[in-house]
C-alpha cells in the first residue's frame, strides 16, 4: 500500500498536492476579511511550515481547508483551491467529509483535549479507518494496533484498550498522529502539534513525523510559531501576518535571506542559544484587530519603515526559487536608505 502511494505521488509530481491559490474569509458581520488572499502550495513529500504570531489566522486557514469552520459564522468570500490538480470546493460539505481523514488528515495542538475522553484510543483510531474504508471491525482494530506500533508506542496491543487519560501528553499526541495517518492520507496538516509538549518529547514527535513522511511520501503542512521547529523540519515556509501570507519561500531563503520587515522582526525577537546576549529587537505594538485593520499593507501599523504608499496593496515581489514577499520596499537594503 505504501508503495502504491509513493508511486502515485511520483506520477502526479508535476502538479502540487494542495494548491491554495486564493483564500479569503471573514467572520460574522465583519466586512473586513480575516484571511485575505491567502496562498500557498505544498507538494507531495514536502513540508510546508506556516509561521506567524498567535491569532494571525494560521489555524483558521487550515480549518477552512478541512471544512471544519462553522458555516453560520465563517463566510468564505473567495476560494480557489486545487487538490491534486482538481478543483476543491469548500462549499461541498459531502465531498469535504470524504476527503477529511482520508486524503487530508489533521492533528491538533492540544493532545490533552483532542481525544475523546470517553472512548478507548484503539476504538477512536479504528473508527477513523471504518469511516472511509469498508473493513470489518477486527481489521480496523488490527490497523489501529499497527498504527500505534508505527508511531512508536510500546506494547500497542495493550495500549489500544486504554483511555486517553491513561496516557501522557506525548503518547496522546502520538495517538493523534496514528489516527490522522490511519488512512494513509496524501496530506497531513499539523496544527502546532508540539506546542503543548516538552522539548524532549517535541523532538521525538518531530522525528516521528519526518520518518513517516519519508515512508509514505505525504505532503505536510505544519503550523507553528516556533522558529526553531521550522528551522529543523521545513522545506518551505510561509510567513503569515494578520491573515495574509507576507512572505513565502524555501526554508533556507526565509531564514537566511528574509525580505519582509515582519519576518525580520520575528527573527530578531528570538532569544539565541549562542552568541552574545543582547537586548532583543522586537516588533513593537500589537496586531490590529479586525475592526482596525489598515488598508493596503496590513503590517503598516507596526512597520518601522511604513510610508504613505503602504496604504496601497503591496506588490508581490519575487526573489527567485519560489521566494516571494509582499512589501513595497523589499528588498529593504536596496529600496530604503537612512533619512
Amino acid at each position, binding site marked *: 500500500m505504501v508503495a502504491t502511494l509513493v508511486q502515485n505521488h511520483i506520477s502526479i509530481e508535476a502538479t502540487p498536492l494542495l494548491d491554495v491559490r486564493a483564500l479569503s474569509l471573514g467572520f460574522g458581520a465583519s466586512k473586513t476579511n480575516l484571511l485575505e488572499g491567502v496562498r500557498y502550495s505544498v507538494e507531495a513529500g514536502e513540508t510546508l511550515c506556516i509561521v506567524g*504570531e498567535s491569532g494571525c489566522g494560521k489555524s483558521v486557514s487550515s480549518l477552512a481547508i478541512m471544512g471544519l469552520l462553522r458555516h453560520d459564522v465563517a463566510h468564505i468570500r473567495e476560494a480557489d483551491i486545487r487538490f491534486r490538480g482538481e478543483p476543491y470546493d469548500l462549499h461541498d460539505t459531502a465531498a469535504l467529509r470524504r476527503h477529511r481523514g482520508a486524503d487530508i488528515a489533521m492533528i491538533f495542538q492540544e493532545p490533552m483535549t483532542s481525544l475523546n475522553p470517553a472512548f478507548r484510543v484503539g476504538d477512536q483510531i479504528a473508527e477513523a479507518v471504518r469511516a472511509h474504508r469498508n473493513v470489518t471491525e477486527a481489521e480496523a482494530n488490527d490497523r489501529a494496533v499497527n498504527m500505534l506500533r508505527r508511531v512508536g508506542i510500546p506494547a500497542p496491543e495493550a495500549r489500544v484498550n486504554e483511555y486517553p487519560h491513561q496516557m501522557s501528553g506525548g*503518547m496522546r499526541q502520538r495517538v493523534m498522529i496514528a489516527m490522522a495517518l490511519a488512512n494513509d492520507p496524501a496530506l497531513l496538516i499539523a496544527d502546532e502539534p508540539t506546542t503543548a509538549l516538552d522539548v524532549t518529547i517535541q523532538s521525538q514527535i518531530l522525528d516521528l513525523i519526518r520518518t513517516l513522511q519519508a515512508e509514505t511520501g505525504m505532503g505536510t503542512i505544519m503550523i507553528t510559531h516556533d522558529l526553531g521547529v521550522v528551522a529543523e523540519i521545513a522545506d518551505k515556509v510561509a510567513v503569515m501576518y494578520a491573515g495574509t501570507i507576507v512572505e513565502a519561500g524555501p526554508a533556507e531563503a526565509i531564514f537566511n*535571506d528574509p525580505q519582509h520587515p515582519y519576518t525580520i522582526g520575528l527573527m530578531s525577537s*528570538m532569544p539565541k542559544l*549562542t552568541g552574545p*546576549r543582547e537586548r532583543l*529587537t522586537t516588533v513593537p505594538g500589537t496586531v490590529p484587530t479586525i475592526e482596525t485593520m489598515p488598508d493596503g499593507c496590513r503590517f503598516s501599523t507596526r512597520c518601522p519603515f511604513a510610508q504613505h504608499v503602504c496604504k496601497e496593496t503591496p506588490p508581490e515581489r519575487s526573489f527567485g526559487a519560489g521566494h516571494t514577499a509582499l512589501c513595497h520596499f523589499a528588498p*529593504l537594503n536596496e*529600496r530604503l536608505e537612512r533619512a
Partner: protein
Amino acid sequence: MPNAILTAMNLTRHFKVGGSLFTRPKTLRAVEDVSLTVQKGETLAIVGESGCGKSTLARMLMRLIAPTSGQMTFEGRQIDQAEGRALTELRRDMQFIFQDPFSSLNPRMTVGRLVGEPLETHAPQLSGKDRRAKVGELLAQVGLRPEHGERYPHEFSGGQRQRIGIARALASGPKLIIGDEPVSALDVSVQAQVINLLADLRDRLGLTLVVIAHDLAVIRHMSDRVAVMYLGKVVEEGPTDEIFATPRHPYTMALLSAIPEAEYGRTRAQIPLTGEMPSPIDPPAGCRFHTRCPFAREACKQDVPALRDTGIAPGHRAACHFFEEIAAEGAMPLPTGGTGRSEAAKARFALYAEAIAGQKTRPRAQP
C-alpha cells in the same frame, strides 16, 4: 551569606491525589528536598520539564501554598510559617507574576482597579486621587497608557495583559519578584517585548528576580544563575554561562540538545532520552533520572546523588554520581555552524534594528 535575600532549605511539598472514588489517595511528591539561595539583585532561573515541580516550588516560595516541610527565610526572617500580618507584609516585599496572562486577571475588574488593589492593601494611607496617579505611573512604567486603566483585561492582547500582571506585581514596591513562566504563553514577538521589559525593570528598580521557564533560550537570555529541576529535585545549578557551556548533569545535557535552534542548518546531535518522565507519585529509587538516563549504571538505581560542586565555576553543582566520567567522555554534543545569513540579510536586520531604535528611513530613489 550576607547578601542572600531569599533562602530555602530542604523544601518539600507533597500532595494527596487520586483518592478517586475507588482508591485511597496517594502521595504525590511534587517537590522533594530542594534548597536554594537567591542573592540580592540577581536573576535566578529555574528550568525543567513540565510537571517537574517548578510551579509548586514557586508557589511555595511565595507562600501561596505551605511547604510540607523545610524552612524559608526572607531577608533573614523566617517565613515558612508566616500568617496574618507577617504574611501580608511579606507580600508587599515579594510579588508574583503568573504564567497565564489570560486566566490570572479577574475578568470582571478594570485594569485600574486590578493595579490599584495592591496599593489599597499595602498603602491604605493613599488617597483615591493619589492612588489613581500612582496607577497611571505604574501603567506607564510597563509601557501602557494611564487611560488603559478604564478598560477590562479581555480588551488587551496577551502581551499587554502580561504587562498588567507585571504592573500589579510592581505596585506594592516589592524587592523580589517571582515569575512563574511569565513568557511561556506568549508568542515570540510578544515574548521579546516582555523579556525586555523585565530586564529594564530589574536594572532600573534593582529588583531581584526568580524566573521559571522551560525555554532554555529565554533562560539564557534573562538569568544570571540557573537551577535545573527534574522530577521534584534540583539536579544541577550554577551560573548561566557555565550551565550552557559545560552542563554536567545528563538531564541538562539532554535538555540542551533537544532544543531546536532557530537557525537554518544549525543542528546538534541529540542525546536521546528514552521513555516518559516517571510519575511523581511513584518516583524511581536512587537517582530519579536513572530510568531515562543514557549513562545510567547500577549504582544509580540505589544511591540518591547529592548536589556536588563541579569545580568548573563557583556555585556550579550537579547531582550525578558520575558527571566527571560522563564529561570525560565528551558527551555534550556541540551544535553545527549553520548556513548563516547573507550579507544583504545582515544589512536588513541592522536596518530594522536601527529603525526600531528610532532611526528614520526613507525610500531610495529607484534606479
